[in-house]
């Protein structure tokens, strides 16, 4: 990537994370529609009345322009694409969670335009107060996007899932009927598998089973390192109860 001047104009993007770089500059970790995740330095934005500074917020649909020859690009322009998603405190913590998933699971410079659209829609739904359902579906799409199949409509013997049976879910392979083998794997009902396949997550018990399943699958992908945002999200939920 180095050496060649790369330029992007008014690219649809979101800020996933930002950290101070110097007294007036910050480094943004962004998720853009056509370039995927990348790091951009925003100079001179911490001063008072910096217009760019007030635009550069997480959960705000942005149009960003940047240029640069090195791995770290320089922000040249930033404007809001539409109104900011107004996140309630609870949905804000969910937003941190999906941002952490993206930072941990997507490589820099890998474009994921479909996931980008899905991410935007997820934030919108979070801002409307839908949380659990939206998080589970985002986890599913993210895993599929990084090439990790989530098999929900047939078992590992290629038989259709039976609504009335119990299954083990074998990561990387798929569901297997509990009556066929005995495994130390997460259990899930055929009913929940099918509901997740059809994205019909209104049943509380189904949602709880899917949550447990996705937790295991995501943990596999993260290689054991815990998600700080999940801990924070759970802390906040138990505090605000």
């Amino acid at each position: 990537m180095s050496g060649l001047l790369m330029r992007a104009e008014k690219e649809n993007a979101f800020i996933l994370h930002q950290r101070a770089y110097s007294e007036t500059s910050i480094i943004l970790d962004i998720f853009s529609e056509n370039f995927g995740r990348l790091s951009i330095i925003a100079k001179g934005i911490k001063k008072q009345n910096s217009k760019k500074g007030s635009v550069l917020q997480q959960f705000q649909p942005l149009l960003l322009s940047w240029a640069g020859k090195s791995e770290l690009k320089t922000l040249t322009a930033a404007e809001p694409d539409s109104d900011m998603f107004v996140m309630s405190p609870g949905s804000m913590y969910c937003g941190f969670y999906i941002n952490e998933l993206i930072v941990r699971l997507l490589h820099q410079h890998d474009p994921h335009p479909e996931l980008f659209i899905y991410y935007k829609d997820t934030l919108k739904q979070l801002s409307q107060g839908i949380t659990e359902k939206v998080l589970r579906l985002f986890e599913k799409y993210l895993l599929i996007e990084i090439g990790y199949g989530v098999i929900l409509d047939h078992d590992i013997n290629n038989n259709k899932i039976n609504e009335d049976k119990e299954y083990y879910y074998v990561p990387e392979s798929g569901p297997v009927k509990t009556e066929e083998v005995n495994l130390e794997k997460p259990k899930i009902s055929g009913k929940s598998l099918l509901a997740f396949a059809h994205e019909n997550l209104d049943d509380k018990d189904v949602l709880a089973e899917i949550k447990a399943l996705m937790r295991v699958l995501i943990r596999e992908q993260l290689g054991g390192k815990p998600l700080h945002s999940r801990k924070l999200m759970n802390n906040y939920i138990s505090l605000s109860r």
Partner: protein
Amino acid sequence: MAESKAIVKLIEALSHLPGVGPKSARRMTYFLLERDREGARDISVAITEAIEKVGHCQQCNNLTEYDICEICSSKSRDSKKLCIVETPAELQSIEQASIFRGLYFVLMGHLSPLDGIGPEELGIDKLEVLLDNGEVDEVVLATNLTVEGEATAHYISELVRKKGILATRIAHGVPVGGELEYIDRNTLTEAFTGRRQM
């Protein structure tokens, strides 16, 4: 001719300063050595002294030369009001604007899960001890009006409310994304007088 080792070392040391790149660090180094050796000695003494003497207040986390800082130990401050800020520099901005006469608690940052910074890293347990002492009747959340600042304010407000204490948030006269350190005095005054219950 190569630069002397001591010069290179000083350039590197000065590059630690915020906003100072290697170029300006070199310029500073030569200025000090050629034209202001006395000033250079003063800087070196002042830095050594500050590093040795300045630590964190045991009560509020602010930078101080004492175990308990001058604000926390002052009799003329209103110990019923506690203002939460992210950094010592922000505390200083509020002090300079003379708009708050209560006590402070400095988080030394904000919640930032992607950096691994959670409630423990911000010393929230220390804050709880302070609240459990029973004197505080209002906590003013003056964290920055960024997404992380808001998340931090909400987290603390839940904790404060659980203890039956009033939690207020500075008003939104401050622009979104605003860091208090860079806000002018009038706006800051308005933000404090217009604070609202969370």
